[in-house]
């Protein structure tokens, strides 16, 4: 390490660029074909979306396997459009919350609540709204479906972005201030990169949740209006209506293929790429890998072709917004506090107004007994969620720990658990329903497991992650002192996985509440099964177009979920943070 090295300029970036050869390789050709195909498919799907609503009636969804790829494409496209909307929401709203204390006062609690609200309940309201916005066009219904997915994705992304913005390292903040970064440059160079890793993780979680809703939102029945958008969700609901088990199986298979594809082609490369934004100064041992990412980085032509993908980034970095002269006025001392007070008064006033509107709306259509009914049904669903989470815990914690302690197994099974968590469990419902009908089982009990069918995997993969993160020296110490059996669990296993378990169980319980709306009332052909619960209450009200009951159901469920989070999961989380943090 010599300071004044007289070396000739060795590896300069431009020189490196020139070394890129011009002879295409086989990988280049394949990659080119893949890219071209993807572009064409996206254009096709987008064209379809703009068509008139009448087309839906002339060419209804059919169970023709030849059309399944198109359906899959349109479903996927909806997902990504919703994701785009969620990202836009994240960048604007979360940034606003982080920059303005007044906005923060409203946005943060709102996000916290929206995270735990059963989004399926929103469907009713939004479909009507969007169909009114684009009368006679598919676009309206598409928007409603996309909005439904958006409502399942946006909140946790915005929340994570907000938290990242609030925890920007102080030295980097000082550097950007010292060099007088413009707000835009600060966003591009500091805030966005810093937030990327946790944002990517939250996007993946959101996508998993989104599949669940895309299935539920493509075939919507609100009161007398029934719309079926071409997509896997509609295929499945048609197959269910026709009791066509083979078609259901094909639909499920298509879903699996789509999920594997998007995971391999989109998320793996993104995760591998986002690794460079992780805020740590030391090189980490294990880097997330992706064959596609490596392929792109290795193949010459492909790198040149993928270069346009980085254009937005470089354009963003290069853009120089004209500096806006800040209107600096020094508010008199104490004015800030008065403004704050005014703002708080305004917020409280609108809160009161909102409560009044809600009250007049509900009281016009409902009686007090409805509220009691909703609460009673809420308790029934609460009991189901609690029992099921407990059962899932008892089942998956030992299995997860067993897997997590064996790195070879963990490496193979972790992706499987993540895939299962991403897989929309509602497409599996028909099989369960057929079974319940065939064996004449009680729906009140046997429909319940459907609620955790999709969400239990969050517990499993978090526990696996926790068990693999137990430090080697702790395991060795436990081995040397002969700690095993119950003592091992009490002093090593449970404390080690606890923070991870709480994260997983929190997600699982939130998801289960949401799933109850589709799991407590299911249909198989002309057979209709229903369990007594708040989910069934909301589902029934939605089908009947009874807005007041939907609103009541959603409100009551939100209260249950929030209370459950505040009274059980939060304290556990805080305890884990305080006492059980390794390192």
């Amino acid at each position, binding site marked *: *390490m*010599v*300071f*004044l*090295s007289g*070396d000739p*300029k*060795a*590896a*300069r*970036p431009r020189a*490196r660029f020139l070394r890129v050869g011009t002879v295409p390789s086989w990988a280049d050709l394949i990659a080119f074909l893949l890219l071209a195909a993807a572009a064409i498919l996206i254009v096709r799907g987008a064209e379809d979306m703009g068509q008139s609503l009448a087309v839906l009636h002339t060419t209804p969804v059919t169970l023709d396997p030849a059309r399944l790829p198109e359906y899959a494409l349109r479903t996927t496209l909806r997902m990504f459009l919703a994701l785009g909307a969620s990202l836009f929401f994240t960048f604007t709203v979360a940034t606003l919350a982080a920059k303005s204390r007044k906005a923060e006062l409203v946005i943060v609690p709102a996000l916290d609540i929206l995270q735990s609200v059963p989004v399926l309940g929103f469907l009713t309201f939004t479909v009507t709204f969007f169909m009114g916005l684009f009368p006679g066009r598919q676009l309206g219904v598409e928007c409603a479906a996309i909005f439904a997915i958006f409502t399942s994705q946006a909140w946790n992304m915005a929340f994570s972005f907000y938290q990242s913005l609030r925890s920007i*390292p102080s*030295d*980097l903040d*000082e*550097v*950007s*201030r*010292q*060099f*007088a*970064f*413009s707000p835009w*440059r600060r966003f591009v*160079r*500091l805030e966005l*990169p*810093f937030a*990327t890793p946790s944002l990517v993780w939250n996007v993946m979680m959101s996508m998993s949740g989104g599949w669940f809703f895309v299935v539920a939102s493509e075939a919507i029945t609100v009161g007398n209006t029934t719309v079926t958008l071409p997509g896997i969700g509609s295929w499945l609901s048609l197959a269910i209506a026709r009791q066509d088990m083979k078609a259901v199986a094909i639909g499920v298979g298509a879903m699996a293929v789509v999920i594997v594809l998007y995971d391999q082609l989109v998320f793996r490369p993104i995760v591998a790429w986002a690794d*460079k*934004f*992780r*805020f*740590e*100064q*030391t*090189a980490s041992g294990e880097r997330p890998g992706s064959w596609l990412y490596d392929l792109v980085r290795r193949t010459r032509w492909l790198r040149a072709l993928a270069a346009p993908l980085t254009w937005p980034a470089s354009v963003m*970095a*290069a853009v*120089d917004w004209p500096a806006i002269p800040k209107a600096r006025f020094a508010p008199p001392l104490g004015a800030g506090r008065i403004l704050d007070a005014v703002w708080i008064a305004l917020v409280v006033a609108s809160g009161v107004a909102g409560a009044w509107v809600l009250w007049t709306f509900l009281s016009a259509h409902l009686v007090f007994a409805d509220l009691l009914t909703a609460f009673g049904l809420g308790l029934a669903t609460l009991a189901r969620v609690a029992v099921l989470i407990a059962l899932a815990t008892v089942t998956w914690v030992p299995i997860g720990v067993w897997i997590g302690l064996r790195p070879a197994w963990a490496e193979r099974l972790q992706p499987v658990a993540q895939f299962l968590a991403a897989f929309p469990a509602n497409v599996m419902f028909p099989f369960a329903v057929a079974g319940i009908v065939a064996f004449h089982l009680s729906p009140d009990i046997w429909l319940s497991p459907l609620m955790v069918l999709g969400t239990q995997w969050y517990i499993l993969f978090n526990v696996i992650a926790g068990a693999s993160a137990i430090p080697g020296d702790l395991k060795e110490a436990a081995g040397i002192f002969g700690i095993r059996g119950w003592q091992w669990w009490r002093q090593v296993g449970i404390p080690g996985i606890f923070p991870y378990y709480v994260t997983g169980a929190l997600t699982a319980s939130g998801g289960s509440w949401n799933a109850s709306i589709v799991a407590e009332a299911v249909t198989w052909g002309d057979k209709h099964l229903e369990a007594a619960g708040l989910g069934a209450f909301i589902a029934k009200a939605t089908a009947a177009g009874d807005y007041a009951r939907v609103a009541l159901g959603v409100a009551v469920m939100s209260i249950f979920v929030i209370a459950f989070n505040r009274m059980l999961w939060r304290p556990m989380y805080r305890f884990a943070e305080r*006492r059980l943090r390794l390192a």
Partner: protein
Amino acid sequence: MTHITHVQDTRLVDVRNVRHLYGKASGANLLVLDDVDLTLCDNEIVGLLGRSGSGKSTLLRSIAGLIKPTSGQILFPPRAGQAPTTVSMVFQSFALFPWLTVLQNVEVGLEARRVKPDERRRRALAAIDLIGLDGFENAYPKELSGGMRQRVGLARALVVDPSVLLMDEPFSALDVLTAETLRTDLLDLWCEGRMPIKAILMVTHNIEEAVLMCDRILVFSSNPGRVVSTIKVDLPQPRNRLDPAFRALVEGIYVQMTQPGQARGGRQNEGLFPGTGVGMVLPRVSTNALAGLIEAVGGAPFDGKAHMPDLAKDLQYEADALFPIAETLQLLRFAELEGGELRLTPAARRYAEADVDARKRLFAQHLLAHVPLAGHIRRVLDERVSHRAPATRFRDELEDSMSPDYAEQTLKAVTNWARYAEAFAYDEGADLFTLDDPD
């Protein structure tokens, strides 16, 4: 305070009567800078030397424009025929963007100034070349060693052509050998005039580093931060650490930094730490370090009386790390610190010879008698029938006279000492002080 008269034209930075208070607007303020004057002139390296909490970093950040001092002025006097003075900063923690390559990190300041890409690239490569980072252009910070990372920090600061380079403990996060290499390299560049800068202002707590690099050293007292003396270093570069003149300067600064009640007179313990009585901000010093220092000073070759520079060298401690331990001993009346010399009291000698239990008893006596907060907590616990008191009670009490961070640190320090002394117990889960022995 020493004022040095300079020819008007060579002044780059003029700091006048700067005061800075930290804390809430109401009440609990901590005065970190009190009436500080400083002039930085052309062609000099000035060091701000002081202990942690002496406000030297605050002063540096005020000059960098990152903090607005509560009162006073920071001026960059216009100089005839010269561009206005600009500053740039090197950080202790390097503060590199981990997602940008070395080249991009260096370019970042130019980018913010809207320099055209071609020129940006050219200037960045020149700075990289100058600072000896050739070949690392496309590396990411996490691939570099600490020394290389700080070189990136230097290149990034230099590439924008500042007239003044501000450095905040630039070498203290590096190991001894790496730090020395970087210092020498920087001094070489400076002496050969190969950097565009006109002056360097650096913050350090390392006395030898200051004497090695600076033309002028401003020694800061702590609590509140004031300039207690200005020392001119006339030794020619390169300087030799073993040169008797060099040693004498280091020695002299040690003495200055250990003057009793540096800032004011009063009782021996007053002025040791910020605040008075129960509201004294205490450092988190482990009881093992305290016992270790007693044993080290009590044993050969010091035999109860040690010169701080020798002690620091012998124990391989930096002054900044050694001072809090020595001062805690002084607070506990186990030692006296005066004129750069640490002398053990008879109690400390008894402590050194005692067994574990006797040591704990002796420590408890001194703790309760001489650390007001410890005595206060113990009294409250004694008075209560339940012999328990919530820690928040004392935390709130402390926050009346200090910031929440300091209150937390102080309470943790006292809790730790009291646990060792078995003077009282603390239950973390319940956040409760008790007199119970653990079951």
